[in-house]
């Protein structure tokens, strides 16, 4: 025991020396104090250098917070501008759609269309409508729906009221799930594998909603399958929305707790005879505040998930309103609904910040309350490998079959040798559609991934820009991004790919920016300068290779997540169009026949669940890689 401790502390000492060495080399160029205190302070803080530079450290967090707030405000401004410009950005003529929606009989004469255009304000150019919209916004007037001709505000308020109720219920579910996940860690005092929580967090809401609908609504008949009439209608959507959020919350807390429980004071308290319950409470109070900002992610997830869940359960909430408006090109209603969704996400985020401030008090000013690093968790590489192998086998088999042939005799046929996974509502082979759908979904995801990687590496050299833009991306769930893009480009695979790309590159770019900064600060780049290398050589031979590789690995690990996002857009009708065999679309199409042919829905659902599992396993496997990369000293 003592031998192990000695070895551990020796290793720790070595690492500290190494950090000191690296800092020493970096000091040659890096400005020590006031010129770039952000980086210097950030470098120093985690290494526990309490002695040096108190003066700089004090204002580092303040500066960071101001920059962060400015970034968020800027991000909000950009999103608002995009929302305000939607009618002009879309560039298409909705007059005909509006005409059809208003009265099916009327002849589509040029005069009638012109009248509608003038009525909608489409002839006023790019500047006037958004200004008029913004001015109306200040007066509380959100405009008039193009389709129904009624005021937007009442529809938005009605939807918002329903959504708020749903989210309240979902948060309750999330809290229960989170407590259930964190409690065993508190009781036993050590960590769990966290795989279960990670799995829960990774299940996309649209998938969970469909499964809840099939199992509890259709097979067991326990819950109503659609509508919004009473408390019973609340249960299904709340579970579908709350469980992934609870999984995420619980995972964050359960991950942080073991390290906190390993801190010295816990031993001290126990030794002094403090009751286990009080120790557990104190550990929670220690672990929670630094996590609270991350709870903002949960809020963002809820707004995005609400769209899917409300659609599946036909709940007349704000998410469904937004989706309906996007598919029918009713831009004023869409503007109002997206605004409400964003406001909802921001409000929950602000609430989280307030709670954090209350919990932390003066400790916030010192920014000294960082959590000890969570111990790295290793996942056996066999897990992702097995998941990938199963998926590949199914996809490979399906690819050999024809996904478009309609066999009327086999409509909704049960699994049989002719159709191993059954047939769908038109008599098409489910296995074939699954295989070809994977090619479409994963193929698009690979393209999106490669694009995100390129953009990220290029923009990694402009960290200021990157940090502002990643704020936008973090505030936008894929579904909302998909709705916005679909409103501009119309629903389609390209639009869905663009939407996923838009929110995929910023985290990669942030990673790239961190790597660029790390490489630029390293001693060997100084040595490059000293041997007379020109900047182009240094960039091409040294900086790029150190950045491109790790970011490419990071991007590859995000691939399943991107595929899931694409599938969720397909499911909501914002992505691939029928008859394309896209996984999300497959699930959507088969929902109508779920009572008679559950296998048609279960096959894509299972495939998506496998994909989610793959995403989790890969992200867990990614962690050790990242820590080895962090230390250039290797073994």
């Amino acid at each position, binding site marked *: 025991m003592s031998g192990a401790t000695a070895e551990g502390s020796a290793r720790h000492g070595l690492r500290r020396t190494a950090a000191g060495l690296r800092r020493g080399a970096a000091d040659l160029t890096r400005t020590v104090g006031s010129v770039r205190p952000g980086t210097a302070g950030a470098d120093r803080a985690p290494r526990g250098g309490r002695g040096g530079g108190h003066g700089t450290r004090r204002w580092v967090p303040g500066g960071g917070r101001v920059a962060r707030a400015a970034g968020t405000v800027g991000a909000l401004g950009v999103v608002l501008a995009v929302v305000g410009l939607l009618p002009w950005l879309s560039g298409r003529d909705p007059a005909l759609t509006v005409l059809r929606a208003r009265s099916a009989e009327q002849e589509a004469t040029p005069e009638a269309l012109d009248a509608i255009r003038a009525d909608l304000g489409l002839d006023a150019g790019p500047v006037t409508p958004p200004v008029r919209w913004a001015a109306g916004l200040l007066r509380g007037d959100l405009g008039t729906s193009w389709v129904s001709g009624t005021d937007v505000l009442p529809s938005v308020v009605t939807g918002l009221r329903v959504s708020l109720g749903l989210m309240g219920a979902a948060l309750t579910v999330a809290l229960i799930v989170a407590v259930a996940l964190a409690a065993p860690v508190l009781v036993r005092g050590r960590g769990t594998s966290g795989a279960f929580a990670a799995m829960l967090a990774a299940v996309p809401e649209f998938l969970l909603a469909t499964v809840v609908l099939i199992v509890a609504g259709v097979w067991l008949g326990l819950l109503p399958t659609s509508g919004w009439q009473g408390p019973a209608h609340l249960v299904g959507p709340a579970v579908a929305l709350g469980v992934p959020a609870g999984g995420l919350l619980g995972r964050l807390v359960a991950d942080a707790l073991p390290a906190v429980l390993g801190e010295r004071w816990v031993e001290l308290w126990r030794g002094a005879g403090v009751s286990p319950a009080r120790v557990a409470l104190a550990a929670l109070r220690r672990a929670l505040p630094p996590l609270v900002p991350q709870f903002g992610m949960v809020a963002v997830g809820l707004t995005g998930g609400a769209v899917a869940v409300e659609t599946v359960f036909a709940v007349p909430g704000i998410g469904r309103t937004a989706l309906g408006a996007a598919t029918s090109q009713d831009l004023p209603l869409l503007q109002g609904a997206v605004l409400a969704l964003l406001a909802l996400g921001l409000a929950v985020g602000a609430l989280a910040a307030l709670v954090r401030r209350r919990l932390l008090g003066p400790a916030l000013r010192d920014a000294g309350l960082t959590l000890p690093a969570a111990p790295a968790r290793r996942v056996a590489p066999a897990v992702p490998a097995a998941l990938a192998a199963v998926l590949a086998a199914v996809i490979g088999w399906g690819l050999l079959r024809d996904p478009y042939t309609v066999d009327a005799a086999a409509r909704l046929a049960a699994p049989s040798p002719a159709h191993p996974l059954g047939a769908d509502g038109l008599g098409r082979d489910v296995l074939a559609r699954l295989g070809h759908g994977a090619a479409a979904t994963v193929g698009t995801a690979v393209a999106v991934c490669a694009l995100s990687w390129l953009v990220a590496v290029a923009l990694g050299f402009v960290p200021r820009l990157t940090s502002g833009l990643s704020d936008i991306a973090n505030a936008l769930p894929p579904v909302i991004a998909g709705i916005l893009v679909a409103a501009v480009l119309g629903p389609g695979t390209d639009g869905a790919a663009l939407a996923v790309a838009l929110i995929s590159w910023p985290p990669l770019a942030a990673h790239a920016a961190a790597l660029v900064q790390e490489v630029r600060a390293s001693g060997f780049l100084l*040595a490059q300068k000293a041997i007379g290398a020109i900047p182009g050589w240094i960039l091409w031979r040294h900086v790029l290779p150190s950045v491109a590789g790790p970011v490419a690995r990071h991007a590859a690990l995000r691939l399943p997540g991107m595929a899931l996002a694409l599938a969720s857009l397909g499911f909501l009708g914002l992505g691939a169009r029928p008859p394309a065999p896209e996984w999300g679309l497959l699930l959507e199409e088969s929902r109508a026949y779920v009572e008679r042919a559950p296998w048609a829905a279960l096959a894509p659902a299972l495939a998506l669940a496998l994909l989610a599992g793959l995403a989790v396993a890969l992200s867990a496997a990614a962690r050790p890689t990242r820590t080895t990369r962090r230390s250039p000293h290797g073994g």
Partner: protein
Amino acid sequence: MSGSLLEVRDLVVRYGPVVAVDHVSFDLSAGETLALVGPSGCGKSSTAAAVLRLRRPDAGEVRFEGRELTGLDERALRPLRPAMQPVFQDPYGSLSPRRTIRDAVAEPLRVQGRWDAATGPARVAELLALVGLDEAAHGGRRPHELSGGQCQRAGIARALACEPRLLVLDEPVSALDPSVRAGILNLLSDLQERFALGYLFICHEPALVRHFADRTAEMRAGRIERIGP
């Protein structure tokens, strides 16, 4: 003082309001070792960075072989840089972790346009042999596959590839085990004798420089308090 390899006059380096190097002046002749000693944070490394122009000094003059460097821009400085080479404290951090030792030593030749496919590899082997490394045994390894001492030797070989006349040694042995230190210091002495190199040797342990340096400059709070043998 026209025979000096390096003349530094009233060098000033500031970090915002902090004056890290405060009117520092010294001379260094070819084949001579000047040790710059002092506690951490006294401005030794900042002086080194300013001498090498890895950082632009805020005031003062640096003359290398009679040529004023502080007024030159990056482009004009580039052809002069090979003649003055740094050896850093962290042996691992000063070599690219992704490149083999062979590549790292060959890189100055490539960068400076002196690489010749016929004679280059032999030159690299010769440089590695100079610092006591074996091309066949060590050339194909990456920094993390070498010991700290070997890695520092590779760093010195890389500096020698530039055919320098001045080496700025920024705590070159502080990160190494005492047993390895002597080997590196002996190597540096041999190389100095052989190539008449001028050494600006930066160190925070006065005991270490007593035998190694010809003269010692003691630094404190950005100023040189005393220069003497």
